[in-house]
């Protein structure tokens, strides 16, 4: 086991900067998600860590050992590919045995290690099958067993659950997490599914256009996004734009928005506030002003979408649509076209530098 340090790594393909001065520290034994839209560089970063491609500049080290010029086959990593990449000409056992076999381990050792790995992924009895005889979930497990049987220093997963259907994906998320805990291996996985990233990982790194936008534990990124992109890409957020007033902003119409999360900005510079839709209260009247809901806006319901346990209201205000999600308690039901008052706390408001 070992931690992975990526320091100032850049990689260009022609004029396209796929990675632009990226630094992340993946601590030993952690479970990391690299999250970003397609083309953000997350897969490129994973392939740099794996050793399929080398950086133009910067350093990569695994367990303190500098590896940025070491080819993949010498890095002692384990990788699970998007489509599993199981060798079609080999049985399940032979697939899992491959890494030990090319290393020249004795046959007896290989057999027992393969069995142990297959047992770990709960496929102990299927060693004799061919990959095409397995279901998608089973292939996924074989790919995982194959990647960990060589006791790699780090486990890399490239959208490992992307090819599975929704129900199976949730099962596999739990399973993957269990196995990772059991063997305690540093794990880095690439995904574009924010929910997957939030539920599975200890830390998340968000990438965009080859740059690391923000990195930290899921709650921190969700509650304290440092950019409009981070706020809207991980979860849903309303973005209000105006000029900074120190710890809040003033909207163009003069309304003040107080924020107690995020940065403190010099008054007058361009800034925005992000607020999660589920943190906003919606009512037909202003009610009693209270310190817990310092921010107040009024608007008109333009649309309501019912989704079983909750409803989403779209409230129009001054040319902007604000999204509000409320639990359906059976009491409030606001009609489209109704005038409403929105209230939320300054603690739920994140001030973001927008200059």
């Amino acid at each position: 086991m070992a931690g992975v340090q990526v320091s100032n790594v850049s990689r260009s393909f022609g004029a396209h900067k796929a990675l632009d001065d990226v630094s992340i520290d993946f601590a030993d034994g952690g479970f990391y998600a690299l999250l970003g839209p397609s083309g953000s560089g997350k897969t490129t970063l994973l392939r740099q860590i794996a050793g399929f491609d080398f950086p133009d500049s910067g350093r990569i080290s695994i367990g303190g050992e500098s590896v940025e010029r070491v080819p993949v086959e010498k890095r002692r990593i384990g990788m699970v590919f998007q489509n599993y990449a199981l060798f079609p000409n080999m049985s399940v056992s032979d697939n899992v045995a491959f890494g030990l076999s090319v290393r020249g381990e004795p046959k007896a050792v290989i057999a027992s290690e393969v069995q142990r790995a297959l047992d770990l992924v709960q496929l102990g009895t299927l060693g004799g099958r061919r990959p095409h005889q397995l279901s998608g979930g089973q292939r996924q497990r074989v790919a995982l067993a194959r990647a960990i049987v060589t006791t790699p220093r780090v486990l890399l997963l490239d959208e490992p659950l992307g090819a599975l259907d929704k129900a199976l994906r949730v099962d596999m998320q739990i399973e993957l997490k269990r196995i990772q805990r059991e063997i305690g291996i540093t794990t880095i996985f690439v995904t574009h599914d924010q929910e997957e990233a939030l539920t599975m990982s200890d830390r998340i790194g968000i990438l965009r256009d080859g740059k690391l936008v923000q990195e930290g534990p899921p709650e921190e990124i969700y509650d304290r996004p440092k950019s409009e992109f981070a706020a809207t890409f991980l979860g849903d957020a309303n973005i209000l734009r105006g000029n900074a007033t120190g710890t809040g902003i003033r909207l163009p119409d003069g309304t003040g928005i107080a924020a107690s999360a995020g940065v403190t900005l010099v008054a007058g510079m361009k800034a925005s506030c992000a607020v999660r839709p589920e943190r906003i209260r919606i009512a037909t009247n202003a009610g009693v002003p209270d310190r817990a809901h310092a921010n107040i806006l009024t608007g008109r319901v333009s649309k309501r979408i019912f989704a079983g346990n909750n409803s989403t209201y779209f409230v129009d205000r001054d040319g902007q649509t604000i999204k509000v999600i409320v639990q359906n308690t059976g009491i409030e039901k606001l009609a489209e076209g109704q005038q409403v008052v929105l209230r939320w706390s300054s603690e739920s408001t994140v001030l973001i530098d927008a200059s």
Partner: protein
Amino acid sequence: MATTRILEWLGRVYILMLLAFLYLPIIIMALMSFNVSPFYQLPFEWTTEWYASLWQNNQLIAATRNSVEIAVITTIICTALGTAASLGLYRYDFRGKKFLQALLFPPIAIPWLITGTAMLIFFFGVGIGRGLHAILLGHVALALPYVIVVVSARLQTFAPELEEAARSLGANQWQVTNRVTLPWIMPGVIAGGLFAFAVSFDQFVVSYFLSTPGQTTLPVEIYAAIRKGFTPEINAVSTIIIVVSMALMLLTARFFKFGGEK
């Protein structure tokens, strides 16, 4: 729907007529190799004497041995060089790759008459000369593009992640090729090899220009015999050739077509 039925029936009849056009002459030629009359006269009387007399024809036997030897060596060289080149074109990307791929088509598309005479001039000019070695040199060049095309087609069905997966598990380049890539493309390699054998074994034009009186191949020998006059012996050896090449082609089809479905 009655019209459809009739049209379908007509279609079948038409295909049968085409097959008759393609195969009847060959069948007649084969039958005549079993007929007693040296002037192909009917009625038909069964004999195998023409096949027996082939065994006495030392010149023909020597030419046959040459043909088989050249075809086998061509197959081995083409399979090795062609598979390597296909892997190179598949694995790597570089400027000029399109051009290298396009270069495979002139040898296939240019009439053999031109290629053959050009080889004759060049080999003579640089001192390679004529003979079996020149024929081999030419056959490999003619068959190589076919092997590369066939193996590359098979490689198109191979997922590049498989090589990456093998490398991530610690396999070196040789282990990756040997244990992952080659097993997968083997049907294509075998089909390519059979193609190479067929191209060489059936090749007449290029062999014709590159052969010398003592060093010649079977088709060249047959051509010389035909120009002297038709004999049932020619029918006999032609029948053997056509059976061998069709059997090879059936084998090729089996590997190339059905290989992909495993």
